[in-house]
Structure formats: C-alpha cells, structure tokens
C-alpha cells in the first residue's frame, strides 16, 4: 500500500517595522555585531515593562492586512499572552505571543492545487539566538547569546495539514511570499530569515483518516531547502515505518551541508508553555470600521492578478511574472503604454527576472519599441537596459548618445560583408564546401566589426555572396 504525505506549515514572517515592538531598538542587519541593538527592555532587566509602540501598531496593522488577504476572520477582541519556557535566548523566560484570542482565525490561501486552510495568523516577538559549538545546547562547550533579534515582531501563519507533497508545500510557501510582498507586509526573504517556514510532516497509509506521528523541521533557509528537507524527511519516515520502526514526535533540524534532517528536541518531554494573559499589555479592541477600511485598501492579490494575466499570456510566462508584484507591475505598465504583450513578457522573463535589474514599465515599453523597430540589436538592447537601470536615463536617450542604431541598408552592409569574407578565407571556403556551421564564425566576426549591423540583412548578404 502507498503512503500519503500530510504536511501543515508554520510560517514566521517579520513584518516591516521601524523598530522592535515593545522598545525603541532598531532592527539589526544580518552582519551587525551581537547585542548591538538591545536595551533594558528587550534584555528583560528587572523592573522594566514592555510597552507597545508605533512599531507594534505597524505590526498589528500588517498582521491584520495579512489575515484579511488570507481570508481570515478578525475577532473584535484580541490580547497578548505569555508563553513560558526557559531558554537562554529568551531573556524574560517567556515569549509574548497570542494564545486563545489570536488576531485572526479560519482563512485560506489558494495555491495551484486548491485551497489550503489557514488556522490562524497571530503576532508575537522573536527570541534572541545562540551561537555555540555543536547542534545541541546541552552538549556545547561554550554558548553565546545574541539578543539583537529579541523583541522583533513576528507574524505566525499556521496552516491546517492540507498539503500533500513537497511540491505543494513549496508552492504554498512561495505563494505566501508573493502575497506578503504584494500587500507590502514583508520582504519575506528566506535567506535573511524574514520568512521562516517550518513544515510539520507525517505520513499515513492511503485511505487512512488518522494522522501519523509528525515531526517538525527547522533551520530551512530557502525554498529549495524546504523542498529537499521534506523529501528527505518523508523518505526517512517511510523507511522507519516500513522497517517496523516508528516515527518519534520531535523537532528536527535541516542540515544544508549534509542535506539531511537531524533530531533537535524530542517532544517526549513536551514543553508545557503555561500560557496566561500578559498582564503588562492591555487587551486590544479592534474596530470593525477600521478593519473594513484595511480590507478595502488591500492591493490586488496575486491570485486575482494571475487570473487576469492568463487572458494575455501563456502559463509559463504567467508563472514567472504573476509570482512577483514588481514584475507584474512592470509588465502591466509597459503593456498599458502600448508595448506588445508577449515580447514584453519574454523580455521580463529572460532579462529582468534572472538579474533583478528592474526598470520602469514606461522605459521598458520604450525599449521594446526600439527593439521592434530594429533601431537596436538584442545585445544592444541589453546594454541599454543595464545602463538605464544604472543611470535612470531613458532608453531613447542612451541609444541616441551611443549612436546605437542598426544599419539595415544592404548597400552599406554589402561592403562590410565582402570585407568579412576576405578576412576569413578558410571559413568562407568551408561554407562553400558544405559546412553550413562555418556561417557562425563569419557572422561573429561581422558583429564584432559592426555591432550596429542588422544581423538579418547581413546574414542574407553573406549567403548571397557565398552562393
């Protein structure tokens, strides 16, 4: 009998805020010195209190916007709770989180295969981090605590166990990232830890309705790693069960270097978090009218935009452009300025998406127009693109300045073609002798001598001269 894979995702996202949530400390960059962004509040010194600040308000708004975009219900009352556990990266011995009255519940996200139900989206604060030798704190010789991240707001987005494969889990996470970027909630960069995906994985016999024992994976730093970690873990669980063993409920880390998961924390001694209402932060009342205002102000969501793009473009192009708010914006602006759909889409897919060299839709429309008129070659267009991104000047200005402009007049090009044949007697002879690929060498030389030559006309001339 076959196995069915069951995956639920816990995703932590760092909303864009100007500071930590309960103190004025700014958000540290990745490479800043440890403990350079801390104060008595995020250090959990005796007698100090967490006070929700402007960043907390921003984080709440972002959390609610995210929840709305995920079709969640927003309750009228919400509050913060203390999640109690002792660990050296947790300065107060409890994490300020949300327990029984989270900021939102019961939503869904549409992903390729269908709807993935969202159990809740809530707000909490991040812990610090430990730096130590070895995987486990208990075995480390020496450990160092860095509290730069302690107090940074995090949204936790918890899905129901509706995902059935590594592909679906990855697609879910990517769709979530796209949505978060579209609504301006977060940069959601996995490598920077702004989006942390933790899959809860179990397997069961096809047809069974009971859930198997699950493991939770951590330390996943890219979508690729997410996919691989799930494949590895499913395989590990399958082997364990098929060889008569069992799956232990535990937290497992993903090792990027070894490409495997390893046991981090057994849930046999399940933590009892002893949640209770955070007495230092008064509960919040969420105004209905305000929530509706936030809902109305949401930008078009990726799924809606994708549906619209599919009316104009083949699915392959939509898959790339529709997944990114910036790319879709550029595409739609360019097309609105009169640029042809497919040529514009192809330029974005081939030239912008891989390099990240974003240019405005208006400039792109201009560039595509120059290309289609034959005013520049494709190579020149690439250069114009890069220069425009760097300098901010319009493609037309750059073309004029460089004197780029394709030469398509056969009488001018004939002289050039003759010179190329004279300079490459062996290639010319080879071609005449039947080696058609020798034409490539001749064309290459021609382009080197005259980058502005219209390659199509030049090629025709060479063919004629060598016939």
């Amino acid at each position: 009998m076959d196995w069915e894979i069951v995956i639920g995702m816990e995703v932590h996202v760092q909303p864009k805020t100007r500071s930590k949530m309960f103190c004025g400390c700014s958000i540290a960059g990745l490479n800043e010195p440890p403990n350079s962004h801390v104060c008595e509040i995020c250090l959990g010194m005796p007698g100090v209190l967490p006070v929700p600040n402007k960043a907390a308000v921003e984080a709440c708004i972002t959390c609610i916007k995210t929840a709305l975009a995920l079709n969640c219900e927003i309750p009228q009352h919400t509050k913060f709770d203390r999640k109690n556990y002792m660990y050296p990266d947790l300065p107060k011995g409890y994490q300020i989180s949300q327990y029984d009255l989270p900021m939102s519940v019961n939503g869904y996200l549409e992903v390729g295969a269908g709807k993935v139900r969202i159990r809740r989206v809530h707000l909490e604060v991040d812990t610090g981090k430990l730096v130590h030798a070895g995987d486990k704190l208990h075995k480390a010789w020496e450990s160092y605590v860095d509290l730069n991240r302690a107090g940074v707001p995090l949204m936790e987005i918890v899905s129901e166990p509706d995902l059935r494969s590594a592909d679906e889990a990855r697609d879910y996470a990517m769709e979530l990232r796209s949505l978060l970027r579209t609504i301006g909630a977060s940069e959601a960069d996995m490598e920077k830890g702004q989006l942390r995906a933790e899959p809860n994985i179990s397997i069961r016999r096809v047809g069974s309705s009971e859930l198997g024992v699950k493991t939770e994976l951590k330390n996943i730093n890219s979508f690729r790693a997410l996919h691989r970690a799930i494949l590895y873990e499913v395989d590990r669980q399958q082997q364990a069960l098929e060889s008569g063993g069992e799956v232990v409920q535990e937290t497992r880390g993903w090792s990027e270097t070894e490409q495997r998961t390893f046991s981090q924390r057994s849930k046999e001694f399940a933590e009892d978090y002893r949640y209770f209402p955070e007495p230092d932060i008064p509960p919040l009342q969420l105004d209905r009218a305000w929530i509706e205002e936030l809902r109305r102000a949401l930008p078009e969501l990726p799924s809606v935009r994708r549906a619209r793009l599919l009316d104009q473009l083949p699915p392959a192009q939509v898959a790339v452009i529709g997944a990114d708010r910036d790319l879709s914006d550029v595409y739609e602006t360019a097309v609105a300025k009169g640029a042809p759909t497919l040529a514009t889409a192809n330029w974005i897919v081939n030239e912008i998406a891989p390099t990240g060299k974003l240019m405005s839709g208006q400039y792109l429309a201009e560039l595509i127009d120059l290309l289609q008129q034959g005013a520049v070659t494709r190579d020149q267009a690439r250069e114009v693109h890069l220069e425009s991104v760097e300098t901010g000047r319009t493609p037309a200005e750059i073309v004029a300045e460089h004197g780029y402009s394709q030469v398509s007049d056969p009488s001018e090009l004939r002289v050039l073609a003759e010179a190329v044949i004279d300079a490459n007697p062996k290639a010319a002879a080879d071609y005449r002798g039947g080696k058609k690929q020798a034409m490539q060498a001749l064309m290459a030389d021609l382009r080197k001598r005259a980058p502005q030559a219209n390659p199509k006309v030049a090629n025709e001339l060479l063919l004629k001269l060598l016939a």
Partner: protein
Amino acid sequence: MTSDDLTRLTITDASRLLRLGSISSADLVTAHVERIERLDKHVNAFLRFTPELWEKQAEEADRRIRQGDAPALAGIPLAIKDVLCVRGVETTAGSQILRGFKPPYTGTAVARLFEAGAVMLGVTNCDEFAMGSSTENSGYFPTRNPWDLERVPGGSSGGSAAAVASGEAIIALGTDTGGSIRQPAALCGVVGMKPTYGRVSRYGLIAFASSLDQIGPFARSVDDVAIVLSLMSGLDPLDATSSDRPGMEVLNNFGAGVKGMRLGVPREYYDVKGIEPGVKAAIDAALFILRQAGAEIVDVSLPHTDYGLAAYYIIAPAECSSNLARFDGVRYGLSEVDAPNITEEYQRTRRKGFGTEVRRRVMLGTYALSSGYYDAYYLKAQKVRPLIKRDFDQAFQKCDAIVSATSPTVAFPIGAKTQDPLSMYLCDVLTLGGNLAGLPGISVPCGTSDGLPVGLQVLGPQWGENVVLRVARAYEQASEMKAEVAAPSPLRGEG
C-alpha cells in the same frame, strides 16, 4: 529643637521650617542619619544607605529653597523599598539572587519624587520579591517592629513601614500586591496607601504579580500620604497599564470631612475569622468616632471574600512564576556558571538565589498554570476575580467607602508564623480584595491593642483615592490619632 525633634516632623511641618530657613535640608538629613545610626541596628529597617545621593540631593534642595523655587518635597528624607529600581543603587528585591545588581535606570515613581526634591536616605528591607507579610522572608535579615523589637513589622514593605514609624525617614515608598503597604502600616502605626491599579506607573518596580502590584507611600499623616501620592501619579509612557487620569485628582475635595458620607462595613470583614478582640474593639471605637463626625455607617456584604483569598494565592503565584523566570543567571545577578550544563546552571542559580517562600510560590504558580491543572486552578481563580469586583461594585451602590480593620491581628512575634505559611497568608485576608479588584485603599492608625498599633482600612471605588483620603483624614482629625514615632524598647527613656 533637638535633632530627634527633626525626626518627628511631617512633610508639612518640615517644609515650613525649611522655607523659613529655620533648618536646612542638610540638617534634616543629618538628624535622620544620626537617628538611623542609633536605632537601625535594632530595627533593621534599612538594607543599605545612599550617602552620595542624600548629599547631592540635600545640597540641591537647599539651593532651590534659597532661590525660592523649592518643589513640593524639597529636602524631605525618603526611604525606598528594595523592589524599586534606582539608577546606580544596588536594588535586590530583598533577594540574594540580585545581590550586587545596580540598575542603569530609575523607576518612574521614584524619579518623580526625586524631581519633587525628595532626598533618598537608603533602601529598605522587605520580604524577598515582596512575598510575605512579616519581612521575615527577606534574603538578608528580618526587620523588627519599632513598637516591640520581638515582633514583626508586617510585610512585605516592613522596612519602609518601620523606617517611618521609628523616625528614620519622613516618608517611604512601598509596594502592595495583596496588602504589603497597608498591613505593615497598620502593624507599625503609620499611614500607608495603595492606589488604584494603574494610578502609579510600575516602571522600575521589580514585578511580583504584575496585575496586582501597585506602588504607594508611607508617612505619618494622611496629608503627607496624599501629597506624595499626587506627585507620583499619572500617565507614564513606560507602563502601558498606567492611567492618563491626572495625578492631582487624588486631592480633590479630600479635606471636606465625612459629614453625610455613607461608610460601609462589610460583615465578612468585620467578623473575619481570627480577628483579635482588641483589634475589633479599636475598629468599633473608630466607627463610633466616624459616626460622631457625621458619617452614616451602613452594613454591606462582600460575599466572595473567602474565594478571594484562594484566588489570590493562585493568581499571584502564577504571575510570579513567570515574572521570576528571568532570574536565570544568564544576564545579571547571581550566576552559578560552573554547572555542567544550562539546566543545571538554572537549577543551581535559582536554588541558591531564591529563599524558601519564593521557591514555594514559583512552584505553586507553575503548578496552577500547568496543563491538566490550569482549568481547575488558574482559570477558576480568574473567574473569581470579576466576582470580587462585582461584590465591591454592589457594595459601593450602598456606600461611598468601605471601612474595616487592615489586619485581623496586631504585630505578631518574630517566628510565630514562619512554620505555617497558611497562617501567614491569612494576614492578607482583609487587604487582598482591594488588589484583586484594583481598588484604592489606605491604612491609618486607630489606637492600640495591648500596646501595639491597630490599623483602620478605608477602601474606595476605582479612581476614588480622594474619597479614601477624605475618610482617612476626617478620622485622623476627629480621633486626634496621629501616627506617633515609636521609641524602640532599648532606647526608651532616651527620648
């Protein structure tokens, strides 16, 4: 005027003398320091002294007085409970676990009194992390009651109460989570007030139970308590639970007397189990005086009183178990770093740093919040809390303020209750309802029983500090029952 006379003054008297130029702030400080030197080896009210601060602050006060722009408390000697952080001053919450800890910040209430010109003499002893009713749970030494050195001063703010009672300070700050200001004020024969929850910022207060803790003043007159409270009240951006109500409103109409006021006597408090006959007699006498002064005494009921005690001893330990988790030896305070691993390090640090009562409450609280017990204990206790509030709301439909004894007993002998935590917990039975409901309350001296002070408690509705102060002041005036400066027995006859 002798040096000791200067240690019997109220704020009002001392301020007049300072402004007249009859004495200087330096004189006032010197008089208190001399008295401390003679007395405190017997009383043990103070844990440590702050000479650099008192010199600087007294000098500043004298300068401002000379310039004629003296703030309200210019030059007034102040003692501060060891749970309130003062920048650069060792602050340990009466615990070994924080030995040597010098906060880099000053709490808001203290900072406001400093701005008002108060002069800090030192840090007063208390039960460890404010957990206790006798100051015997201090991680350093017990404080003694200035009226009888063989007896406790009450707690947890016993050091502050004893300092004011013995003339070692004119005013002191304490904190009250279940009665920790009012009960020692009663046992030491001084005035002590717990404000409405949210009236005074908790910033800088080392938390015991965050939803119950409030900072409040001790003094030897109701007027002094009112002045100090008004100065430290009001919104603080560093405490999200602090109210934006103006601090000065606590003084509204507080001198108006009790004529025409209805004062409720809850039968559950009046006949509380274990109340001593001498205490009851003193309360009866106080009720008589209040009636004479024009108040109407009415019967009221607080039917959930019994559940209040049980709920309190679940909620307070639950919050404390979380609040005290930060004392792990990783960042400050005691740290047993030689342990083989982090769990062992936590255990060794906390076992060595925390005393018995603190460990007991951390365990009680952890238990009450644990899955499987949560519903039966913590959740149930949280459900009692609104019932307690409702009791008071209903009582305040029938009366303007509630009066009762502050403590069922007078000061008890040192060691009498240390072996029986439950009997110690019962000390709070008349005070902790005010904490659970977040209400303001005061204790004023109302005579003695067997030569030991008895306290009269006045509780008011939320934000009704002015009502509480008004009743307390009217009683103080009508009874001529001024808080006296105690002369501890080894010094009797010395004056």
